[in-house]
């Protein structure tokens, strides 16, 4: 087992290199980070040249990647533009934990900028995922047991509405109903933006209140998709011979459902969840944007627009690592659930 894990981790290394090269090349084509550095004013040509040298953007693409990867403290760089390399570089490269300095937030490292947002995103996304799994399981199992009943048909209809509703529409609709109209009607309304009311402060109650609408938005669509999937997986399993055997043994229906059926149905469901969990860290681009939630999704969008390569690359690399780690965890969970799967 541990040999398998080590092998998988070693395999991940070339994959990460490959991914980082592609992402770096793509980022290089996105636009000019210096263009917006002067704030509202157009950057002066002299500043522009200086900044270009300082940021290492005067170097050819492969050197920029190399600096990003291993840093530039091992060589002299030409900062004043006289053609003579005279200053030792200060970057240590991502391999040594240096994500570089943010281009957009001067004076902050990309790592600080990202790490600042991770808890917010995890709070929102982990809550959402827990809600998704609980409700999707309940709804999926229920509609599998009541296949073709009225309740099943209603759930099917609602799921298809949920599945086909764009997430921004649901977000705006929920704001319109629960924030705007409820306030107009004099009902207790839900806050639509931010993590807390600045006048009250960041209390757990405030954060929970502000989470309701974004969590509802994220979960609605996913519950719809997950529960359909769980329903069909459960239906498949419930038709298996071993379920008939379990029934022939006179076991209780609930026991059959949760021990005999669900453990078999869990495998494909775990695949789905495992792939989704990794992406939680990336946040929800649309939802975070609409509800002004200070998470990774919004961070990504904001810094992408200003071509802040170190932060954007940092986010993407972090995501890639998480995806790989969660895939390994998912594979290990298989072995835990299904004795036929062994990694030796």
């Amino acid at each position, binding site marked *: 087992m541990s040999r398998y894990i080590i092998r998988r981790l070693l395999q991940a290394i070339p994959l990460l290199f490959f991914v980082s090269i592609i992402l770096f090349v793509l980022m290089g084509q996105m636009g000019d980070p210096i263009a917006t550095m002067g704030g509202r004013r157009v950057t002066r040509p002299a500043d522009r040249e200086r900044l270009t040298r300082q940021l290492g953007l005067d170097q050819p693409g492969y050197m920029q990647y190399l600096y990003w990867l291993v840093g530039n403290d091992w060589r002299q760089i030409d900062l004043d533009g006289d053609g003579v390399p005279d200053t030792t570089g200060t970057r240590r490269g991502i391999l040594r934990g240096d994500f570089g300095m943010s281009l957009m937030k001067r004076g902050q490292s990309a790592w600080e900028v990202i790490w600042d947002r991770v808890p917010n995103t995890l709070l929102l996304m982990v809550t959402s995922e827990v809600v998704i799994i609980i409700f999707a399981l309940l709804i999926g199992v229920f509609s599998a047991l009541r296949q073709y009943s009225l309740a099943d048909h209603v759930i099917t209809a609602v799921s298809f509405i949920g599945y086909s509703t764009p997430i921004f529409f649901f977000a705006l609709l929920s704001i319109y109903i629960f924030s705007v109209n409820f306030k107009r009607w004099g009902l207790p309304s839900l806050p639509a933006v931010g993590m807390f009311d600045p006048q009250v402060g960041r209390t757990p109650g405030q954060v929970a209140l502000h989470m309701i609408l974004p969590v509802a938005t994220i979960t609605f669509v996913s519950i719809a998709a997950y529960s359909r999937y769980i329903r069909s997986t459960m239906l498949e399993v419930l038709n298996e*011979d071993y379920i008939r055997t379990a029934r*022939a*043994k*006179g076991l209780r229906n609930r026991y059959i459902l949760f021990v*005999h059926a669900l453990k078999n149905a869990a495998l494909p469901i775990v695949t789905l969840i495992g792939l989704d969990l990794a992406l939680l860290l990336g946040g929800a681009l649309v939802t975070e944007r609409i509800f002004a939630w200070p998470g990774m999704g919004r961070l990504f969008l904001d810094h992408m627009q200003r071509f802040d390569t170190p932060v954007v690359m940092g986010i993407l690399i972090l995501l890639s690592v998480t995806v790989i780690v969660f895939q390994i965890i998912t594979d290990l969970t298989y072995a835990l659930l299904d004795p*036929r799967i062994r990694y030796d």
Partner: protein
Amino acid sequence: MTVYASHSTAAPRPLLLDIRNLQVRFYTPEGTVYAVNDISYKVHEGEVVAVVGESGCGKSVSMMAVLGLIPRPPGEIAGGEALFMGRDLLRLPEDDMQSVRGGDIAMVFQDPMTSLNPVLSVRRQMTESLRRHANMSPEQARDRAVELLELVGIPDAARRLGDYPHQFSGGMRQRVMIAMMLACNPSLLIADEPTTALDVTIQAQIVELVTRMREKLGMALIWITHDLGVVAGLAERVIVMYAGMIVEEADVDSLFDRPRHPYTLALLGALPRVDRRRDSRLNSIPGAPPNLLVEPRGCPFAPRCEYVIERCRVERPPLMPVSPTQRSACWVLAGGEGNN
């Protein structure tokens, strides 16, 4: 309709299962499937009954209906009774039914490869019914499980208890399945083609095992099969089913010596025989099994029958006694119409 005259051959044994006028239907998008059409038969304590017929003739479905294992919907029990020790299983509440299933009546299924849960250990699957029906502690259940596995001939039973089904061969899995079903000392064991999915040599072992277990534990046995060869060596009484109906019922000797239904005759004629020339063609029954989507009218075998007369097409023959131990549903061979 048919009231079955009791057997006079063996000493009268107490009645165990009495199926009366059982009807099972399935409502499918293609229409109503008339799977079991008004069948009645009895099983006495300790008796070995074979139910014979081709695929889709309703032999498994009728047993599953008795055990309440028919998925409803689409299935429906349209009528009849199944009296087991005086209680009508068809009208028993689910809770009581659960204590009958796996307790008093056990069922072994066709394919041991798919009938065991792949993700639960043999120990788990063996002990769960013991704990449910016999209220055993985990340790008691474990000891009993080892005992049962030894009984059915699993070598090194104590160690193999923790294994999973995929670590057993097909024949061993069927042994595990049988051990599992015998766990609570059932008074009736239903074996639904338990050898069909196995190699021929393993088949013989399983037949031998079930016979031995039956002698040892004294339970009644209903053996569902399409293999007349197995029937001859195993059963006391044989029920031949066709298109969801019983077409002939007889003690095993009468059935093989003097079959009184054209379908039984055709089945026996289709058996490969060692005393026949090797290059002679195997006989088969012309025509195809009937479409069960049509409500039965007349004798279901009439379209394929070489003895067919006009009456067969319009009126369904009831099971008529041809001897004290044999009944046949044929106007010609049992109803005395052959002289016309």
